[in-house]
């Protein structure tokens, strides 16, 4: 029992080490982060302006509602991008710096190693996504008097468990293809959101895409967050339970996929190619 407690303590200290490392890196690259944030704001504006554009070309819509709906989609897209990017960098960046071998030979379980990356990614992603939401909402002067932001935030955190599980599966790609693996991860991000109704209701999708949307955690996250912000709804169980189920499946599956990728890399010498 005592040995188990000691092992758990060491594992949690290891997890905190991954978080600590990401804090150091974020501090060292803070100006790059500011630059990327500006880019994300610009990108979000290009999407959110679509609502104004529809009215300008004669369409009749509730501009404030459509603007908010598009903004939520863009913010979730950005948030998912941050989670996936951090997990992808677990391998890609470390391989670039050459530290991956030292990380992989440390007596730290892969669950805690990836868990540390996930914890930091979620905290960092929530801060960035909230800032993005506030900046763009202020830009358009959105009022959102009924919004239940707390429920939206809690749902995003619950959905993050599933995003993290799927992110683990994609983070193995740079191990298999060091040159192109990271880009493949962004394809997964796009596929996930396109079937989840990122800027539109899922009902407009072809039937087969609607079926796929039922296994995407982003579907329930987007639906629940929109309901909370647009209508002031609280946490809805019909959004929460699918997220819990998908999370319970995706985390062990993600770890298993990463483990298989790690074995492949160790069998073929892909952790480092020379030197």
């Amino acid at each position, binding site marked *: 029992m005592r040995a188990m407690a000691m092992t758990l*303590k*060491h594992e949690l*200290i*290891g997890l*905190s*080490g*991954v978080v*600590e*490392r990401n804090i*150091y*890196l974020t501090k*060292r*690259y803070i100006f790059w982060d500011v630059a990327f944030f500006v880019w994300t704001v610009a990108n979000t504006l290009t999407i959110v302006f679509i609502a104004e554009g529809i009215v300008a070309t004669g369409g009749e819509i509730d501009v404030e509602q459509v603007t908010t709906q598009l903004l939520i989609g863009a913010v979730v897209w950005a948030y998912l991008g941050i989670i996936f990017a951090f997990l992808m960098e677990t391998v890609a960046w470390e391989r670039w*710096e*050459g*530290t991956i*071998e*030292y*990380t*992989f*030979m*440390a*007596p*730290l*379980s892969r669950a805690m190693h990836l868990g540390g990356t996930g914890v930091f990614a979620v905290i960092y992603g929530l801060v960035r996504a909230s800032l993005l939401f506030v900046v763009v909402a202020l830009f358009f002067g959105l009022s959102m008097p009924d919004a239940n932001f707390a429920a939206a935030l809690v749902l995003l955190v619950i959905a993050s468990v599933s995003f993290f599980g799927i992110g683990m599966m994609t983070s193995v790609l740079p191990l298999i293809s060091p040159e192109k693996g990271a880009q493949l991860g962004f394809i997964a991000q796009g596929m996930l959101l396109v079937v989840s109704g990122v800027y539109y209701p899922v009902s407009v999708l072809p039937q087969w895409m609607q079926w796929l949307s039922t296994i995407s955690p982003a579907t329930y996250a987007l639906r629940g967050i929109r309901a909370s912000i647009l209508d002031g709804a609280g946490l809805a169980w019909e959004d929460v339970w699918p997220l819990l189920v998908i999370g319970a499946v995706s985390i062990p599956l993600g770890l298993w996929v990463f483990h298989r990728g790690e*074995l492949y890399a*160790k*069998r*073929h*010498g892909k*952790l*480092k190619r*020379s*030197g």
Partner: protein
Amino acid sequence: MTEVREAVPLEAVPRRSPPAVDVLELRKEFRRRDRKKGRFGRRRVPALDGVTFTIRRGECVAILGQNGSGKSTLVRLLSTLLLPDGGSATIFGHDVARESRAVRRLVNRVSVEASFFKKMSSSENLHYAARFYGMTPSETRVKIPEILTRVGFPADRRGEPMENLSRGMQQKVALARALLTSPVVLLLDEPTTGLDPRSKKEVQEFIREVRVEHDATILLCTHDLDEAEELAERVGILDRGRLLALEPADDLKHRYGAETLEDAFFAATGRGFEEEGDEDDDREVFA
């Protein structure tokens, strides 16, 4: 002299324990592109071909070999970073493939490249790395300045990004990282290659010191014949994945009727130490 933290107390490794390193018929192959077989043609290149040896607890063994001889492959296999294709390797009785977690608690490694997050400082790099071995912030706050002082790293440069440091300085931090976790087995893969003579001497002196004071078992893969002779009790010759000999330097010279280790290497392999053929280049295995 400061004490290094005992992540794995040496008392935990029984005196009458298995050899520190026990390698038996170890094989590793890599699939490489075969230019003769067209775009998708592949061939198997043996990086290690039936290597067998043991290292006693507290012993220092040097392995000499040219680029492509399989030295780094051997170190990576023992570090659990590669999976063997055949044979076995154990560290104090723990199989590197099947009991990798137990092995990782016992070994650490310093390679020719001091790999760090280059924008982070030496202190930051050591702090997060120590956490992976279960060291708490209160422990590292004390131990990291101590160990950096011990390797001769200037106190006023501890906050500087690694990219601003010379290779010699970076290698000292790499040594500090390896020793911070108190490894029972230290794997050194060309730790002094590319260093200026002064840094080289300092690193070699430090390796000697660690061995005496920390009772560490050391496997030193090197290009440097003098370094091998000075630091190691036994010297091995690894050529094209095969371990041709492993014995004390004097015995090696005697066996091949050579006056120097370089002559012995030439006699054993049929080529000079610095001489590399196309075949070595073609192998494209870990150097």
